[in-house]
C-alpha cells in the first residue's frame, strides 16, 4: 500500500511549554490510523497543526507528497484534507442538507457559480450527491430539518457526511464518539466502517478502545506530546507503557491491586 500522509519531526510549543515534541506518523492509502492518548497528550493540537489552525515550530506535514505547512488553511481542503470537529460545528439555522452542502464548497465553482441559487448549475449535481450520502447514512428523513433542532448523536453524524462531501483523500475525525451513548456509538461505528470500506483514509482521535478496535487497523499512542507506542489496536491495549500512561502507574501494581 502506498503512503498518502506523513508527519515528520512535528514540534509545537505554547509559551515555554513544548506540547508536541517530535511526532512522526505515516498513514497508507485506505488505512485508518487511530491517534490515542490521555487527556492533554496533544492529540487535538496535532489535528490543529494538520489543519493549519496553528503553525508548527518544526516539522513537515505531507499529504500526497506535498507539504501542507506553508499552505493557507483554507487551501488544505482543496488538497484533500477534511475533518469533523470534537465539539459539533454545524450552522444551527441552516438545514441539514445546506450544512452538508457547505462541505462541498470546493466543488461548487467560482464566484459566478456561487451567486446562483444553491440548486442550479453545479449545485444540482452537488444536491444529488448530498442526498445520496445522507440516504446512505440513514439521515434522509432529517434532510430538511434545521441542524440546530437535531439530537446530538444525529448532528455528530451530519458532521461526518459534511466532511465527506469534500471527497477528501484524508478524513480527520476528532473524538467522533464523545458525548454519544452506547447505541449511538454502534450506529456511528457501522456508518464509519461502511465509509472505510469505500476506501476513505482516516486519522481518528478517539478514547473508546472498542470503537478504535472496530474501525482502525493501527493505533499510535501519544503521551506528553511524544509517541510512546504504535501497533494494532489489540497490541496497544496490552502495551504496559500505554496502560501506565492511561492509569498513571505500573500495570503490575494495577494487576495486584
Amino acid at each position: 500500500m502506498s503512503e498518502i500522509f506523513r508527519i515528520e519531526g512535528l514540534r509545537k510549543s505554547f509559551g515555554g511549554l513544548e506540547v508536541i515534541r517530535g511526532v512522526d506518523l505515516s498513514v497508507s492509502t485506505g488505512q485508518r490510523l487511530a491517534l490515542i492518548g490521555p487527556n492533554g497528550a496533544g492529540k487535538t493540537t496535532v489535528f490543529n497543526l494538520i489543519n493549519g489552525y496553528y503553525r508548527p515550530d518544526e516539522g513537515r506535514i505531507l499529504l500526497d507528497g506535498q507539504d501542507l505547512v506553508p499552505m493557507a488553511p483554507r487551501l488544505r481542503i482543496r488538497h484533500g484534507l477534511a475533518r469533523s470537529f470534537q465539539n459539533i460545528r454545524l450552522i444551527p439555522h441552516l438545514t441539514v442538507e445546506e450544512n452538508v452542502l457547505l462541505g462541498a464548497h470546493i466543488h461548487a465553482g467560482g464566484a459566478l457559480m456561487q451567486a446562483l441559487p444553491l440548486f442550479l448549475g453545479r449545485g444540482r449535481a452537488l444536491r444529488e450527491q448530498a442526498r445520496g450520502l445522507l440516504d446512505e447514512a440513514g439521515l434522509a428523513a432529517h434532510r430538511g430539518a434545521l441542524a440546530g433542532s437535531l439530537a446530538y448523536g444525529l448532528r455528530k453524524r451530519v458532521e461526518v457526511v459534511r466532511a465527506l462531501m469534500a471527497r477528501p483523500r484524508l478524513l480527520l475525525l476528532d473524538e467522533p464518539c464523545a458525548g454519544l451513548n452506547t447505541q449511538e456509538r454502534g450506529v456511528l461505528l457501522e456508518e464509519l466502517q461502511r465509509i472505510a470500506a469505500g476506501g476513505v483514509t482516516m486519522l481518528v482521535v478517539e478514547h473508546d478502545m472498542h470503537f478504535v478496535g472496530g474501525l482502525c487497523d493501527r493505533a499510535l499512542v501519544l503521551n506528553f506530546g511524544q509517541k510512546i507506542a504504535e501497533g494494532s489496536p489489540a497490541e496497544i491495549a496490552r502495551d504496559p507503557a500505554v496502560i501506565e500512561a492511561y492509569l498513571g502507574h505500573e500495570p503490575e501494581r494495577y494487576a495486584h491491586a
Partner: protein
Amino acid sequence: MSGYWAGILVILAINVIAAYSAWLPLAAGQVNLGTAGFMAVGAYAGAVLSGDYAWPLPYAIAAGAAASGALALLVGSAVLRARGLYLALATLAVNEVVRGILLNWDAVGGASGYPVIAHLELPPIALAALGVFLLAAWLGASRFGMTLHAIEQDETMTGLFGVHVPRTQLAAFAIGGALAGLAGALYAHHFSYIEAQYFTVLLSVTIVLSVVLGGVQTVWGPLVGAAFFTLLPELFRGASNWRYVLFAAAVIGIMALRPQGIVTRAALMRLTGRKPA
C-alpha cells in the same frame, strides 16, 4: 392614493432598500454603522450627475450606487480586518468622515445642502425596492448567501471548508454599499434637496436596528423590519408626543420576545408548513 400614503410608501421603499444594504454584511456577522454615509455618497453623486452634468436619471442613480459600492469596496478592504465592536466603530467613523467632507465641501453646497432638480415619484422607487428585494432573495438562496450565514456562525470552520472568508465578507459589504448608494440616490431625487446632516450615524444605527429586529436569518427579515420601523410610528401618530415612547417600548418588547428577530428560519418553516425538525 392620497399624498400622505404615497409619501409613506416612498419612505418605506427607501428604507427597505437601505435595510437590505445593511442585511448583506449583517448576515455575515458584520455590523456596518456606516450605511448612512454610503447613502450620502449615492445621494450626492447621483444628484450632481443628474443636475450639474445633466445625466439621464437612471444613469445618474446607477452611477450613485456604483460610486458608493466602489467606496465600500475600498473602505471594506481596509476595515474588514477589524472584528465585532471594532468593525462597528470603524464603519461609524467612515460615516462621520463622509458626512464631514460633504459638510465642508462647497462645490456640493457645504452645510447649506444641495438642491436636486430632477424628480422621482413613487412608482419607479417602488419598482427599485421590488428589484432589490428580488436580488436579495436570489442572493439569499445562493451558495454565497449560505456562506454568509456560515461565516456569521463560525468563521474558522467555514474557512476550513475552503471558503475565502475575507473575500466573501468584502463582497457582501460592497454589494451592501452599492444598495445603500441606490437608496440615497432615490432619496435625493424624491425629496429634491439633500444635506449632509441627514445622513447621520443615528440613521445608520436605525437601519441596522430595523434589520436586527426583523431578523437576519432569512430574506424576509429586513422587509419586515423596515416595514415595522416605517409604519409603526405612523400608527402611533394619534398618541402625538408619546408615539416614540410607544415605539421604543414595542421595539424592546419584540427584542425580548424574539431575540433572533421577528422572522427566523424556524418560524418561516412552521409558517410554510414544513417542520423545522
